[in-house]
């Protein structure tokens, strides 16, 4: 808490005149720290809060007084004007302007009376602030939960994520992130575990899913993590029942499992007798060793069960790629760089050649949030802009109110209140607003935080822990105080430069300058709002561009489904008989699916589009200069007729036919247009040879169009297809085309599968349209969030325009009356008022558009199919916002045209 104190204090010190600050700032900081410690000792947080208030007002007062001559300069310096009023002001400012609890309390009472007299102003200001503070606080609570809060493990900063890396493959079109952050095969992992001494603990874990067979129920697909034993001591895990794994487990081939607390309570009714019992996963028996403590979770995984994994570097499969991730707890005094150097060294000593092998070691916490950090920070910045616009709006409101109050303040000044004292009054008023805004903001934040977490796209880590806690509330209070000072300072400063005496004589001598200040604030508001609106529109246009993108096949009416093929059932030892039985089983399912109502075709495909399954293969096209280093292409095994059914155009040659399905027949492939162009430019691909899977030499029989199947942004240009029977696997997913509503067909398809085998788990079933739409969840979320910020900012800015225009009309009632009296028609008066509003808007929007284009780079990576200087967006904003401003001016303009010239002139 004291840290926050220093933050605002350091900032507020800048209010002091440079010369004074230079000589005393260090001492003041020192004393402030002592005072904070002292207050905490004496009265805890309440005392600290009182200290902050006293110090803040003290500094503000000093900042005012330091810029004015003191009493002695007039009395002790010859020739100085012995100004009675000034001397009085001095006595007032030194004797009375030191804010004490008394003057603050009276200011508070006065502020309350002021606001009660103007409930509209109060309501509008508090509402604006609540939305601004609420939005920022909600975004901060997300950032706090996801990025800032340390992981819930002992010494979390010591825990590092460890990856294998292939730096030469950075920038590879299909590998992407995997080049520097690969996954391990278990033997590789054991090798590192055996040789390293930079980590106190080193463990691998692999998220997986298992089929859980339970008596009297349908088998169920459950999320699990396979892990080595060191994971639990590394993360400080404790158990509710039993124990975690240790080195002695698994030595004689025993299989063991731990339950998460949730799965123990939900699935086993918190029954302690589950300990030591056997569970059947994938038709194998596992002994329950323990139940983990409530809430234990490795971020990025969601496991109901933890199965034990052990082995050594001499196991088979050292060169293979696995899907295991690794964590290490750094040993005492070892840095992440040293650890990385050693892991790289171990990998380079590998007995098996698998390419240049390096490693990446980086803090687990920052790795977890790497993907979401940029967008979260942009959204926090956007909410910050919104808050500034909200503050601007309140400042404009107060300035406007200040114009009305000029005479009141002038009178108070004349009867002895010093400028500093009046400024304190105005600041107190804005502080009251700020505190009310903070309370409203906290309420908005609680609701908005829930909405943010609820609507968030999948893949944001640790979002479940989002809550408006003490840190977050502190953040909103600090925001409120900063806002209060920010929007209170403008009216207060403009007051101190006002000729108070002059203001009494007239009702508009100095209000012009204040009105100009109000206009500048509104222009600034509009500029910031424009930045947000441009950002929101660009993101929204990205989503709509992606929605319209053609994936290269007919995506409507397709259902993809995958099953957990019960391989263990076809394990009699007689390979031929097993294969025949398994194929018959699969055919049975295919036929059952085809018999569902509305189904036109059923195909087998090893990686359905947007399913998240991918298989990359290095291939060697005929005539490729360096056959050992061919292009990497995506491999898809499909059944005959797949292209026709999917609507993927066959550009040359033919697709697969039933003849190609003979397992021992000729190896044939169909290549994508992109691969054909890369491998055989200006030549026909049909008839060429393509080697894949090391040495499988196939003949290219056709060329088909490239499709998008990973995400909508990128087309998978390099791909080849092979007949399902030549390696598709018995567990390959199905692609079903239905006529009519695909979503409605899902239930029927599920029933058909279970009519063949009621025990067969369907691991996933979804329409391809839904899978595509899921791809856009993150983009849609970003666009919606930004649009909400933009809409609020736009609303505030337009309200600001309304305020300025209304104020200006009220101020110029006489002028308007005179114009009308002199024969101006009402239309021209109307036009004059509207023109003024539009002029403000245009200036703000032009500045805003320039700023938006200048800083648009931060959004660039989230844009697709639209540039950051998209002319349509900029034109829409450039025309739309001034149009809204004109609309906002309608009511004041009507008021202006309704001015009765006689009344207006009489009023003087």
């Amino acid at each position: 808490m004291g840290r926050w104190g220093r933050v605002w204090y350091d900032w507020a010190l800048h209010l002091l005149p440079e010369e004074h600050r230079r000589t005393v700032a260090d001492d003041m900081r020192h004393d402030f720290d002592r005072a904070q410690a002292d207050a905490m000792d004496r009265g805890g947080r309440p005392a600290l809060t009182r200290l902050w208030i006293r110090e803040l007002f003290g500094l503000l007062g000093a900042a005012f007084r330091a810029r004015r001559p003191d009493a002695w300069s007039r009395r002790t310096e010859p020739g100085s004007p012995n100004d009675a009023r000034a001397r009085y002001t001095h006595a007032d400012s030194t004797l009375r302007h030191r804010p004490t609890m008394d003057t603050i309390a009276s200011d508070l009472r006065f502020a309350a009376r002021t606001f009660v007299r103007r409930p509209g102003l109060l309501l509008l200001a508090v509402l604006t602030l609540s939305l601004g503070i609420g939005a920022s606080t909600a975004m901060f609570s997300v950032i706090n939960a996801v990025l800032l809060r340390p992981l819930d493990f002992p010494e979390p900063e010591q825990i590092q994520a460890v990856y294998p890396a292939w730096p030469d493959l950075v920038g590879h079109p299909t590998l992407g992130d995997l080049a520097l952050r690969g996954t391990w095969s278990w033997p590789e992992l054991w090798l590192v575990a055996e040789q390293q001494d930079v980590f106190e603990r080193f463990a691998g874990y692999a998220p997986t899913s298992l089929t859980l067979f339970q008596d009297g129920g349908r088998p169920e697909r459950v999320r699990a993590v396979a892990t080595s034993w060191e994971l639990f001591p590394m993360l400080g895990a404790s158990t509710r029942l039993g124990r975690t794994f240790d080195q002695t487990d698994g030595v004689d081939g025993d299989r063991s499992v731990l339950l998460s607390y949730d799965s123990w309570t939900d699935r086993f009714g918190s029954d302690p007798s589950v300990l030591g019992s056997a569970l059947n996963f994938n038709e194998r028996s596992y002994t329950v060793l323990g139940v983990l403590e409530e809430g234990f979770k490795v971020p990025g995984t969601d496991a109901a069960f933890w199965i034990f994994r052990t082995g050594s570097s001499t196991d088979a499969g050292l060169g293979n790629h696995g899907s295991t991730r690794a964590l290490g707890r750094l040993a005492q005094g070892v840095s992440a760089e040293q650890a990385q150097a050693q892991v790289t060294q171990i990998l380079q000593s590998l007995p098996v050649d698998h390419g240049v092998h390096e490693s990446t070691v980086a803090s687990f916490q920052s790795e977890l949030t790497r993907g979401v950090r940029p967008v979260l920070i942009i959204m926090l910045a956007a909410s910050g802009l919104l808050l500034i616009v909200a503050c601007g709006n309140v400042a404009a409101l107060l300035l406007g109110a200040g114009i009305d109050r000029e005479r009141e303040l002038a009178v108070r000044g004349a009867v002895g209140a010093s400028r500093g004292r009046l400024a304190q009054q105005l600041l107190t008023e804005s502080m009251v607003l700020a505190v009310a805004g903070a309370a409203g903001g906290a309420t908005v934040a609680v609701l908005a935080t829930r909405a943010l977490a609820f609507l968030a796209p999948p893949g944001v880590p640790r979002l479940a822990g989002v809550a408006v806690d003490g840190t977050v509330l502190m953040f909103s209070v600090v925001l409120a105080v900063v806002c209060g000072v920010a929007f209170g300072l403008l009216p207060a400063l403009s007051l101190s430069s006002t000729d108070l005496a002059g203001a009494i004589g007239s009702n508009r001598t100095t209000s012009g300058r204040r009105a100009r200040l109000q206009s500048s604030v509104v222009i600034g508001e509009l500029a910031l709002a424009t930045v947000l609106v441009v950002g929101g529109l660009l993101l929204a246009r990205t989503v709509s561009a992606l929605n319209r993108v053609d994936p290269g096949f007919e995506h409507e009416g397709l259902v993809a489904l995958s099953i957990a093929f019960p391989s263990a059932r076809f394990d009699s030892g007689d390979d031929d008989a097993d294969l025949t039985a398994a194929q018959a089983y699969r055919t049975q399912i295919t036929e059952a699916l085809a018999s569902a109502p509305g189904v036109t075709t059923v195909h087998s495909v090893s990686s359905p589009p947007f399913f998240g399954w991918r298989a990359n293969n290095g291939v060697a096209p005929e005539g490729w200069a360096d056959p050992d280093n061919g292009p990497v292409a995506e491999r898809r095994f499909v059944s005959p007729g797949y292209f026709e059914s999917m609507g993927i155009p066959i550009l040359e040659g033919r697709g697969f036919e039933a003849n190609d399905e003979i397992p021992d027949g000729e190896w044939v492939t169909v290549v994508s247009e992109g691969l054909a162009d890369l491998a055989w430019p200006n030549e026909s691909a049909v008839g060429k040879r393509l080697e894949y899977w090391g040495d499988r030499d196939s003949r290219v029989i056709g060329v088909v169009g490239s499709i998008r199947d990973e995400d909508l942004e990128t087309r998978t240009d390099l791909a080849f297809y092979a007949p399902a029977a030549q390696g598709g696997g018995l567990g390959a997913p199905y692609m079903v085309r239905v006529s009519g509503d695909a979503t409605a067909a899902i239930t029927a398809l599920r029933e058909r599968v279970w009519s063949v085998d009621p025990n067969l788990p369907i691991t996933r079933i979804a329409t391809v349209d839904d899978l595509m739409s899921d791809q856009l969840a993150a983009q849609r979320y970003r666009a919606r969030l930004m649009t909400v910020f933009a809409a609020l900012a736009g609303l505030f800015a337009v309200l600001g325009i309304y305020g300025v225009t209304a104020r200006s009309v009220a101020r110029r009632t006489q002028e308007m009356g005179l114009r009308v009296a002199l024969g101006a028609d009402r239309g021209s008066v109307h036009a004059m008022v509207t023109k003024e509003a539009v002029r403000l808007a245009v200036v703000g929007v032009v500045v805003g558009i320039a700023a938006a284009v200048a800083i648009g780079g931060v959004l660039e990576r989230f844009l697709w199919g639209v540039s950051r200087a998209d002319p349509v967006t900029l034109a829409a904003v450039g025309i739309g916002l001034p149009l809204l401003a004109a609309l906002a001016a309608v009511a004041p303009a009507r008021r202006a045209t309704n001015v009765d010239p006689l009344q207006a002139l009489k009023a003087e």
Partner: protein
Amino acid sequence: MPVSHPAADFLPLPHLPFHVLLALADGEPRHGWAVIKRIDEMTEGGTCPSTGSLYLAMGRLEDRGLLERVDPPAEEQDTRRKFYRLTALGGRVLDAESRRLGALVDVARASRLLRPER
């Protein structure tokens, strides 16, 4: 450059500068925090200046030669802190102001405005 003036030029002394001079009246050099604490003690919590007000007041008293900055005492560990001490002029001003206030209090007593506390 401090210029010497008759003590009377500084009267009446505003509230906070008077307390600052009082806090340093014993001749001991003190830093800002010690002055704050001492004022707080002397007034039994009635006056506890903020750092902003205090340093502005001390700066002005120093400019007028009522206070002077001195080296920290030998036993002080933090030698970067500034210590302040009353000058002779400061002492005279404090004396004059105290007399003035004393005289005012006498007047008030004589008019029976001020009664001894129960």
